[in-house]
């Protein structure tokens, strides 16, 4: 459906996005995961038609959208700060896109037929049901809580049945429990409506909850593209691993074709890429009972986390233990070592 081809865009003469290519298919939700300033919002705005790539193409159903203004793209966009119209009540906010469609089709300045008005009422009610805000129609935007506002924003974007839905950090301003709640609702809605969606966030939890596919955006490039499962098991880069909250990434120097020397010891590796001697690479240390390597670590801090203890060690590595060690104690941990790009 949506296809992005080799997008280039610069900001203040520095490249912001380069060679971005990916596609989204029917019913698929993809998630663009990246740090703030990585250009992910810009990418979204280019897809929406609010900004333009310096080169590259954006196609939908094989049609280049370069000449299609934002209002004719039929893509829904949900903003981080909701972007609700303060001068309209909830009903009129949700009905906005529908009214626009009706007006364009009537090609008259004002007015719609009774039938259209009834249809509009029904559709708005449907949307209010969908986001669980029945009875909020007459309220003012400013009377609503953040979560409610976000649901209105979602209903507003969904109401005109867009060909594509885009979310720009939609839950950024909400607290955690509300976030999870909304995320699950959103996931259910996306599955139900089968609208392809692009979800932009810097929060990996959100990404993993919602996405069918995750794209890592780093340094203006997509460095990883895969299902949550693939991405999680093989992050393929130190940056991705850190982004995913896999804290135990450690730098090492290649000493011989399959040996790497690190602060916590020398490991034998079987990497996909060949590394030359003296090259610096990153390793992911996964704590695992089946691990072949055992490392010694000095405990620096101990935190209680749910049913186990999170132990911070001198090398900045974090491991989990059933019993709390003493600070300063040397512990032994079995790990599985993976190469990162």
């Amino acid at each position, binding site marked *: 459906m949506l296809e992005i081809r*080799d997008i280039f865009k*610069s900001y203040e003469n520095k490249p912001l996005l380069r060679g971005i290519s990916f596609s989204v298919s029917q019913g698929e939700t993809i998630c663009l995961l990246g740090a703030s300033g990585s250009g992910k919002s810009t990418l979204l705005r280019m897809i929406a038609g609010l900004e333009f790539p310096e080169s590259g193409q954006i196609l939908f159903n094989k049609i280049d959208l370069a000449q299609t*203004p934002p*209002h004719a793209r039929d893509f829904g*966009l949900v903003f981080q700060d909701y*972007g609700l119209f303060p001068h*309209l009540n909830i009903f009129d906010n949700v009905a906005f896109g529908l009214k*626009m469609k009706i007006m364009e089709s009537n090609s008259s300045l004002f007015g719609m037929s009774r039938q259209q008005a009834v249809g509009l009422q029904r559709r708005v009610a449907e949307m209010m049901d969908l986001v669980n805000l029945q009875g909020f129609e007459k309220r003012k935007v400013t009377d609503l809580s953040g979560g409610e506002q976000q649901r209105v924003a979602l209903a507003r974007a969904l109401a005109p049945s867009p060909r594509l839905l885009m979310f720009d950090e939609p839950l950024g301003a909400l607290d955690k429990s509300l976030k999870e709640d909304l995320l699950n609702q959103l996931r259910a809605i996306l599955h139900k409506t089968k609208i392809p969606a692009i979800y932009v966030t810097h929060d990996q939890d959100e990404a993993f909850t919602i996405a069918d596919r995750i794209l890592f955006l780093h340094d203006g490039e997509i460095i990883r593209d895969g299902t949550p499962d693939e991405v999680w098991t093989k992050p393929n880069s130190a940056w991705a691993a850190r982004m995913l909250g896999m804290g135990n990434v450690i730098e090492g120097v290649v000493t011989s074709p399959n040996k790497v020397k690190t602060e916590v010891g020398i490991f034998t590796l079987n990497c996909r890429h060949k590394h030359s001697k003296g090259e610096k690479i990153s390793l992911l240390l996964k704590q695992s009972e089946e691990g072949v390597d055992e490392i010694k670590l000095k405990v620096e801090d101990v935190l209680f986390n749910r049913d186990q203890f999170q132990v911070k060690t001198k090398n900045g590595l974090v491991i989990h233990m059933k019993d709390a060690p003493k600070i300063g104690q040397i512990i032994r941990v079995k790990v599985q070592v993976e190469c990162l790009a």
Partner: protein
Amino acid sequence: MQNKNLNHGGTETRRKSILRASVSPWFFRVLLWLAPILFLLSFFFLPLSRIMILAFNTSAFTKTNFQLILSTLSFTFYQATLSTILTFVLGLPSAVLFSRFNFRGKPLLRALTAVPFMLPTVVVASSFNALFGNHGLFSFLFPLSPEFTTSKTFYFLLILLAHIFYNTTIVIRIVGNALSRFDPKLEAAARSLGADTFHVWKNITLPLLRPSLLAAALLVFMFDFTSFGVILLLGGSNFSTLEVEIYLRVLKLPNLPLAALLSIVQLIFTLIFSILYTRTINQITTQTAPRFSISKPPKSFRERTFVFTVYCLLFTFFLLPLLSLPIRSFTRLEADRGQRGEVQYGFTTDYYKELFINRRGSLFYVPPIQAAANSLGYASLTVLLSLALGYPAAYALAKPTRLEKFLDPLIMLPLGASAVMLGLGFIISFGRSLASPWFVPIAHTLVALPFVIRTLQPALASIPERLRQAASTLGASPFRVWQTVDFPILSRATLSAATFAFTVSLGEFGATLLLTRPEYPTIPIAIQRFLSQPGGLNFGQAMAMATLLMLLTTLAILIIEKLRLPNSGEF
């Protein structure tokens, strides 16, 4: 913005998208400016430069002339500065009153404050006389010595009072409009951080209001700086501003080279003020969120005292002088002839009846309804024209580029041009085509346009881009975005601007006198006609006409303000 095509593929596509999808920023800007610039060029710069070229002569460069210019300039400055400060002393609390509090009779009082703006100076002088003159209410309450009432100081005070009377509405409208868009969270935040009322104002509210305050101050100052009728009529021929001097040098003691020199001085100063204003205003970009109404009934004792005090002040200052007009229009104040010294006071409707009689079968007799229709017609055209020209200009100015920084100060220039000079320019530029009735709304638009732009610009700048984008992704074309987002959110500012344009047009006298056809006089012209001949009926009819004008404008303003845009009903 962007636009550097780095050597990547798809340049061709990009170029097309510039033209079709979104118009190129430069092209778009030029498009926005096209109509306003064309308008100003043909109806301001062209006629003005033609008369200047004709009149300007180095023979005016004499020592006495320069001394005259210098002394006039310093008085002009002095009175304008003082008047502006005093106008703010009354205007700021009033702006707060109207934007923050709800109270009985608010719409009416608000409308009343705008009425003086369009009353002809002769009528204002007359109503001031009713209040401050020797038989007036004021002198009855506070007896003043005749020495004082004929002293220069007294006349100067009258000038200042009249300037406040005229211009307070500018502050109320521009600053009040900004205040009502002000995010109350900011003040709450400051308060929670330990700031008291004073410091909240000083450190939060005032700095954030700066664009609007400056806009209002500039307009008030410009009006005082180019003050004409007030100085002539109330100044007891003791004072002259640049505008008065130009008038004298064009019409009374003809010396066109000197008049041209004076005009240039006035224009240069106008330009300097405008540039200063543009510089200051561009340093700050306030994004006050568009809000629902934040006015509420006064609660605490302090709030009640504030509301009560300002209310009373406005009531006495605006209502009493204005009331004297309708009172006089219904009162027979003539000596009963033959019976010596008896002055008969009595209620009469004769003056209103007389308005409908063409006693002398005069060719230029115009029934009051017709004069009102002329006035309303010209005013409506002025509103439409100035909004049509003001919107695109304000749009461009809301996000200024280098082009706007250059053009911005030029917009204000018409306010600084002497009406008589410009009038002469019109006459030599347009000749016989001046008989076209279109020139009246065009001249009015010239005066109204700076107001309209200055009212719309800060409001437009405060609309978050996000909202427009949201509308756009929901399928709204650029026109629909304007129609559904900008326009309703700007409804207040638009109404404000429209009211300004409307009142400017209703009250405009100088240009109208020069341009209007005698068969289609406006109400101020009709008033002037009555007042130019002796006789009780003439005076009474002038008062009746003035009352009509007052009523009409108050009603029009009330209607304009009631004219809620359906979509913004809750706004």
